[in-house]
């Protein structure tokens, strides 16, 4: 009797929880529904509404080198370059931190942790002033270097945590055979922490792909702009806003990061490694 009562209560609770979640989901989905429906709608405006007939005109209109391909290519060069630099530097830096005890490790890691939580937005004005003086303003390489530096603290922190998970014994054999640090890092440690490296890579890339303020400040020439900044053009210079095209562009621009997120989420068995990593 008590058991069925408890089961009843559980089922009711499940229904209540489902209802609660669905309410939140409905509220959250509205802006997303707008972007999908408007992209297919020949007469899109600002409201969520069923499209007046489905069309791919909006995609057709934006898939030009001017509007879409050049900014996406710029994003790719910028974020790809910076991600590569971040991951290589982070892997190299994490290795001695994880493998060799030194009294400098602790202060270094504490500084890294401190830098991880600094509001990067705040230093963009001095970075701009500095970049003007050293002639790095409006250059892709300058922006790549700054992007990498801003992402490095968290990348090193994550990378070290993943590296700590690879047992040291596996390398010791290689060391006795005369392998150097660099060899044991590239041949033994990194392959064993493949998922960890993937997480750091994807996470860095996604963060930079979506970042607006850094390229907005450091790049000036329109044909160097990544998609995160060029999307602004839909409002500024093109006169009347074509909402359908704006929606279509938003979808094209967002798809890569959503796919990458799905990729790492799968790889980690649906778990959330970053949450775990920042929790310590």
């Amino acid at each position, binding site marked *: 009797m008590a058991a069925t009562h408890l089961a009843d209560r559980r089922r009711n609770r499940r229904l209540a929880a*489902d209802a609660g979640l669905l309410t939140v989901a409905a509220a959250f989905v509205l802006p997303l529904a707008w972007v999908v429906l408007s992209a297919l709608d020949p007469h899109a405006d600002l409201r969520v509404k069923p499209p007046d007939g489905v069309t791919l005109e909006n995609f057709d209109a934006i898939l030009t080198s001017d509007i879409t391909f050049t900014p996406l290519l710029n994003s790719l060069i910028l974020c790809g370059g910076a991600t590569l630099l971040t991951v290589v530097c982070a892997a190299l830096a994490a290795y001695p931190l994880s493998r060799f005890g030194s009294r400098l490790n602790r202060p270094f890691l504490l500084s890294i942790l401190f830098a991880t*939580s600094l509001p990067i937005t705040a230093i963009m004005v001095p970075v701009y002033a500095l970049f003007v003086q050293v002639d790095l303003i409006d250059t892709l390489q300058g922006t790549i270097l700054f992007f990498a530096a801003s992402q490095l603290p968290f990348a090193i922190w994550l990378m070290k945590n993943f590296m700590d998970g690879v047992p040291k014994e596996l390398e010791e054999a290689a060391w006795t055979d005369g392998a150097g640090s660099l060899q044991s890092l590239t041949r033994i440690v990194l392959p064993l922490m493949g998922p960890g490296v993937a997480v750091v890579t994807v996470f860095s890339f996604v963060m930079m792909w979506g970042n607006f303020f850094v390229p907005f400040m450091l790049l000036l020439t329109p044909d160097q702009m990544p998609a995160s900044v060029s999307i602004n053009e839909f409002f500024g210079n093109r006169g009347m806003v074509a909402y359908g095209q704006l929606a279509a562009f938003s979808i094209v621009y967002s798809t890569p990061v959503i796919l990458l997120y799905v990729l790492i989420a799968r790889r980690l068995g649906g778990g959330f490694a970053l949450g775990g990593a920042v929790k310590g």
Partner: protein
Amino acid sequence: MNRRSLVRALPVTPALVLLLLFLAGPIAYCAYIAFTDLQLTGQAESSFVGFENFRTAFQDEQFLNAVWLTLVFTVVSSLIGQNTLGLALAALMQRASKPVRTLTGGIVITAWVLPEVVAGFLLYAFFRKEGTLNALLDLLHLPSQNWLFTLPILAVSFANVWRGTAFSMLVYTAALGEIPKEITEAAEVDGAGGWRRMWHITLPMIRRSIGTNLMLNTLQTLSVFGLIWVMTRGGPGDKSQTLPLFMYEQAFQNSMIGYGTAVALLLLLVGSVFSVVYMRLLRTEV
């Protein structure tokens, strides 16, 4: 230091150079130009002005307005919104059926993964006068209004909740998952209701996660720029101008780099204080 340690520390060099040149350098430079009257145009030399910029700031109504708005934005969107909604979602997910859980999680996470500017546009469309929110209110025969004009700071706060809740949800899902089932089941059999279990058992057990999550949310929210920029440009007037937007306006629209940097330095200091507290929370980990 002996030669062996030097060789071992060698791989840290590239990262260290990047961090010193592009992160520590600008921060030090920031600390310097905040005390000068550096301007963007028409001035060959800048001179040292001491605390003048900070004195100006604390007498500047627009600055105090920005501080107040930053506070409202952070408390409403981060402390209350993201944190509470994230916890509620995580708690509901523990009881909900799998398809609903997957669906809701997927939607909330998609909002989080979207690039900042895209999120800004979607919420701009949602809150605009001709937008979805007013269309819904019309359907329910409730009065509509121009949200981005009348309540811009609340509109951008809600936007930040929409965009940022997933992080709290994931952190709390992980934290709740670590609570042993026996404990909650024992309390349930003893007849403790949902709220009492939440208050007396769950919350004390996940308090470390709550601390870390609040800290990270706050730091994140403190530096939001793109979302607000896209939705309101800080306007109308300066009704949604938080500190990052104020800093940008002073430095670039008004060409007062020194003054803008002084504001940036204050922002960095607030961030540093939070950062130190966060490190204390994690103190046992390093």
